[in-house]
């Protein structure tokens, strides 16, 4: 079973992504966190195969959260999802160790491919 931690403050977004993941992946368990603090607590408690991280979190800077996750679980792939499409974001999250960057508003197929691609580089 594939365990995916979904970090986004929007319930709507989490629901849509969760449904998308359930549809495209055969055996998947999705954990959800509405903010950075909650996400880091889940990371600490449970084991995950990939993290989908929104950079715009209400309680903490997304880039800092990304760096914290990478420090806690250096081998855990983190796929960054963000509403912003500027290239600087892609460059910055890559530099911070993210497995990939996918813009919110992309089609389901793009997002599914990105998640699968992130999972494939795991361990």
């Amino acid at each position: 079973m594939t365990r995916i931690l979904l970090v986004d403050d929007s319930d709507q977004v989490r629901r849509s992504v969760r449904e998308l993941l359930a549809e495209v992946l055969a055996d998947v368990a999705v954990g959800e966190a509405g903010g950075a603090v909650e996400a880091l607590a889940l990371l600490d408690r449970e084991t995950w195969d990939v993290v989908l991280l929104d950079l715009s979190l209400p309680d903490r800077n997304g880039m800092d959260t990304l760096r914290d996750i990478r420090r806690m679980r250096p081998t855990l792939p983190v796929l960054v999802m963000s509403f912003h499409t500027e290239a600087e974001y892609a460059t910055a999250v890559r530099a911070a160790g993210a497995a990939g960057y996918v813009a919110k508003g992309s089609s389901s197929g793009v997002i599914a491919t990105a998640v699968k691609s992130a999972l494939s580089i795991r361990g």
Partner: protein
Amino acid sequence: VKQSGVKQSNAVFRILFVEEEGLGQPRVDGILDLTAKTEYVRAGSLREARQLLESERFDLIVADESRLRRVIDSIYTFVGLFSIGGVVIDVNQAPLTASTLRREQLVGHRFVDLPWFAHSASERSRIEMAIESAGNGETVRLETWIRSVRDGSPMCIDAAFSPLRDQNNIITHVIASGVNVTSRKRAEEALVASQARLEEAQRVAHVGSWEWNIAENRVRWSDELFNIYAVDAADFVPTYQGFLSRVDPDDVEHTVAIIRQAVEGVTPFIYDHRIRRPDGSVRMLHTRGEVIADDSGKAARLVGSCWDVTDRWQATRELEHVVSTLTATLEATADGILVADRTGKVAAPNQRFLALWRLPSDFGPGADVRELVDRVRDQLVEPAQFVDKMMELAGDEEGEVHDILHFGDGRVYERYAMPQRMGGSVCGRVYSFRDVTQREGLVRKVEARRAEAEVARKQYEIILERISDGFVALDRSWRYTYVNTGGGRMLGRNARDLIGKHIWTEFPEGRDQPFHQAYEQAIEEQRPIQIREFYAPWKKWFENRIYPSREGLSIFFTDVTGQVEAQEELRVSNERLRALAARLEAIREDERRTIAREIHDQIGQSLTALKLDVGWLRSQLPTDRAAAVAERARAIDALVDQTIETARRLSATMRPAILDDLGLAAAVRWQAREFEQRARVSCDLDLPNDSPPIDPAVALAMFRILQEALTNVARHAQAQKVHIGLNLGPGGSVLTVADDGRGVAAEELERPTSLGIAGIRERALAVGGEVTITGSPGRGTTLTVRVPTVAKRGR
């Protein structure tokens, strides 16, 4: 004669024969036998014998006795026959005639007892001895002085006392004879005296005489000549060569030539030459010489005199020097000088005089002052006055004049006329003229300037009275020399009452106040000082403009209290306005952030979910018969995409999330790329790879400044390229935006309507930063923002 036993001697023995006519031939042969050294002379008459006896000496007279007696009586020689004891036995007529004594007064008396012949003890003794000697066989001859029996005057007698022997050669008597030689004696004495006087005269006049026997090369010098040469007669034997060795080397050739010429031509000569004394001193001699020829007409001897004219020569040389100095001085002086004698004859005008009066350079001595006046009078403005003055001076030897002469062509001369005195009496007149045209011109100019200055001063005072500023002038001892009315009013005094008063006595509260210090400083540094200070004693602001001068200080002062207060109000108001603007900007930024976040969090998230849901719906639609539904779903999807894009742009415009998410450097890079695409201007970036955390307010301000600057570049610069530099050092953040556009002029930067620039300045100011903009037309513009930043600890 033989029997008389005349004693033979070495001297020639002279015998006079007196032979009267008819007397017969004497036995001359016998006499001739007497001695070879006998010379005899014949007298044919008594008269002849007397003449011979008077002019010559004879040892023996041979004559008939009676005749002899007459002869003896007729001669002027005194003859006396004395006893051996010296008693007068007989005398001839001559002494009786000479003394007017009678024979009886003499005969029978000892000769030496006669008062007339041996008047003094020493003479008496000499004669006694002579008579005694004669008595002993010896002839004694002597000169003795006797007194004239007639008048007691002294007479010199050449006397002889001889023995008279009888046939047996026994001395029986003494023969005395004597001749009055007083006049000869007197002449001899006069000669000696005159020779002595000549020597003395030579000595006094420094005239020496010499004689040169050429053949024998024997030279004789007078005593004074030795003195002149300063050589000792004992050491120096004068010769011609010796003389030449004393001549000054420079004059030897000349001397030799002169003497050779004189000797060859047998001509007298006169010349001057110098000699050197043994001590090295030089004397100048004036020599006159004559050549004395021998029988053949050749030069045998040179005689002459030398006159030591050194003093005269030196005096002449000194005089020449003085005259030359005076002449040179006269010619070198800038004054024109004319000397005229008492008769008005021009003696010596200098060249300057001639030049001053436009006279030919050969106008000179001998001319008459009146003639001179006639020649120059027309040059003057008032010739008549000039002529009158000259005539007046001609009649007044003692008169002195100092006046100014004006010429028709504008020249101005100063004239001095002084009597020339010599030994206390007037001997002429000296006129001195000086060209003072320039000086007079200057004097007039100075007077004109002074008048102008006075006018200017009055005008100045009028202006000072009219200005609203206060004005005071202080002298160096802090006393008021001038206070204008406005100044008096401001000081609360009557302006006129303050004149002469001491400022710190009148206003003691002003001592050591800033204004006082400024006055001191202005005096010390001698430069104008402007000062605006609060004057605490009067609770007012004053502005002083202080000008130091040699006389003291000039101070303009104005009460600027209202102005300062207005300025202060303006400043406070400006600060409030700025705070307000900053606050408004902050509010606006907050609103933007809020809006951007709302867009992101609400609209963006909803759209994200919507997008996914629409995607799911589309995937669930049957592909065969629901083409219309599928088409509608695809349209919804596209609309969602469009909306997402709009939301993104709106959010980024409000506030780029990248600034908060990725930091200033990433935001700058993004903004630069955006600008490149939008404005088609290439950007050259110099950014740090890693952005250290900086104050978000500073980062925002810098980002907004960058945006504003790039907007300006796009609008105005017409640039091809922009260089953007960012330096986030520990001391501060520096953002540089440099374009290669048309450049910006200084006045454009200050223009109030350059709101872009004003906004940039305000933003920088709000975070404690500063902006500099440099540029010149054609060379682009560079904007630099410096903001001191404080690094935050940790992340």
